[in-house]
């Protein structure tokens, strides 16, 4: 989730709007007593707002719908980020929805009025320079920021990237608002932070690598916009020199890990092989029974693998993964104030 403080219901008090992993935007209303219990933001049909994929609270399973697709924009989007913003300049807050499974951003037009929203039932793709926005590395979060200082809110997006250090990581871009000052229109993106290569070797993390959630503000009071980024960092401590015996042991431990993974897959295959033609709840029940019957096997594999991983870490530093919030200090003001050479 990425919270947005905004007066969503136009009562003069700030509320919190947030998209969460269930696939829908939520609202905690601000009141004299404090923040109210979060509620789903509904469309004008009285149903929760989703793009495609969502957690179905009735069936307690992941579900999907295409009821709200714009023609030509059918997909399997999973909206986990939300931004309330007056896209069309009609004086009320529309909703932007970011897809964490792709780089797409959609919006729901508000046909109501401030305080009485009536969100349209079509997820329109948000376009920039004539094409749908496609955030490299899929959408983690969206923020509004007047990055270029022209008085209009620009759209910033942070991206996910490979969440476990796999492949390229995330980055940050801003799409400048090139609209007429009322309705927003987005120009070509400016790269604020390039995607991470997730290949840092060192004793400490070097940057936010995956799942980049950013916000902007003048944190150091020098008159320009700094950037905060919450994310996972991935790094690898420099390997130690190993003698021949240690190298052989590393190879053996790595082989033991692979063997554990193969054993796990084999047991899982045997669990699934006994399901026959069972479907629905009967299949789920049978699967649970068969899975639980093999608990001793799973536990033995887990113990073996855990021991191998633990010993391997004494010889080869394991890859590190930890979440932090980073500050990127903007040097623009300092550079502008520096005496000319």
């Amino acid at each position: 989730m990425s919270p947005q403080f905004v007066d969503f219901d136009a009562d003069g008090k700030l509320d919190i709007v947030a998209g969460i992993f269930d696939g829908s935007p939520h609202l905690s209303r601000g009141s004299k007593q404090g923040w109210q219990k979060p509620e789903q933001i509904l469309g004008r049909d009285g149903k929760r707002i989703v793009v495609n994929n969502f957690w179905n609270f009735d069936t307690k399973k992941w579900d999907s719908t295409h009821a709200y697709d714009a023609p030509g924009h059918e997909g399997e989007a999973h909206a986990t980020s939300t931004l309330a913003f007056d896209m069309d300049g009609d004086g009320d807050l529309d909703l932007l929805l970011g897809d964490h499974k792709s780089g797409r951003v959609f919006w729901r037009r508000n046909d109501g009025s401030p305080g009485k929203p009536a969100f349209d039932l079509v997820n329109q793709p948000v376009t920039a320079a004539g094409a749908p926005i496609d955030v490299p590395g899929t959408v983690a979060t969206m923020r509004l920021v007047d990055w270029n200082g022209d008085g209009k809110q620009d759209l910033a997006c942070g991206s996910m990237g490979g969440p476990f250090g796999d492949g390229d990581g995330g980055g940050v871009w801003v799409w400048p608002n090139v609209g007429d000052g009322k309705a927003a229109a987005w120009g070509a993106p400016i790269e604020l932070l390039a995607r991470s290569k997730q290949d840092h070797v060192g004793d400490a993390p070097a940057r936010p690598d995956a799942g980049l959630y950013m916000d902007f503000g003048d944190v150091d009071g020098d008159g320009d916009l700094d950037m905060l980024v919450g994310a996972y960092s991935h790094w690898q401590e420099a390997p130690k020199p190993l003698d021949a015996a240690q190298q052989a042991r590393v190879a053996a431990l790595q082989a033991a890990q692979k063997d554990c993974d193969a054993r796990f897959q084999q047991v899982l295959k045997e669990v699934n092989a006994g399901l026959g033609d069972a479907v629905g709840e009967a299949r789920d029940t049978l699967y649970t029974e068969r899975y639980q019957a093999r608990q001793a096997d799973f536990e033995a594999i887990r113990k073996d693998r855990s021991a191998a991983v633990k010993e391997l870490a004494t010889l080869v530093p394991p890859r590190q993964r930890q979440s932090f919030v980073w500050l990127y200090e903007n040097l623009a003001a300092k550079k502008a104030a520096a005496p000319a050479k």
Partner: protein
Amino acid sequence: MRVLVLPVVFCAAATAAAQSPQFAPPVRLKAGETFLGEKRLYPSPVLHDLDGDGRVDVVVGDLPGVLTMAPRGNAAADAPVYGAETKVLAADGKPLDFDNW
């Protein structure tokens, strides 16, 4: 392959300064004695004066839907110092929870 079209021409130096990122190497923020957002699932910070003291705090959301606040401990014109994170409370006095799926 996704390709970004980046602007190559800026009309004025002032515009270029506003648009081109010129960031110092990133540093991890601390909240009290610990790193802000450490061990949180997908921490998402937002700058907001939550306690109304005129200084901008950092509110951090996460995947499970929990919100915390690290209060800004010093003046806006200095390198930021933040106090230890505490959970943001709802009107009922319990932690505000954007209860996840």
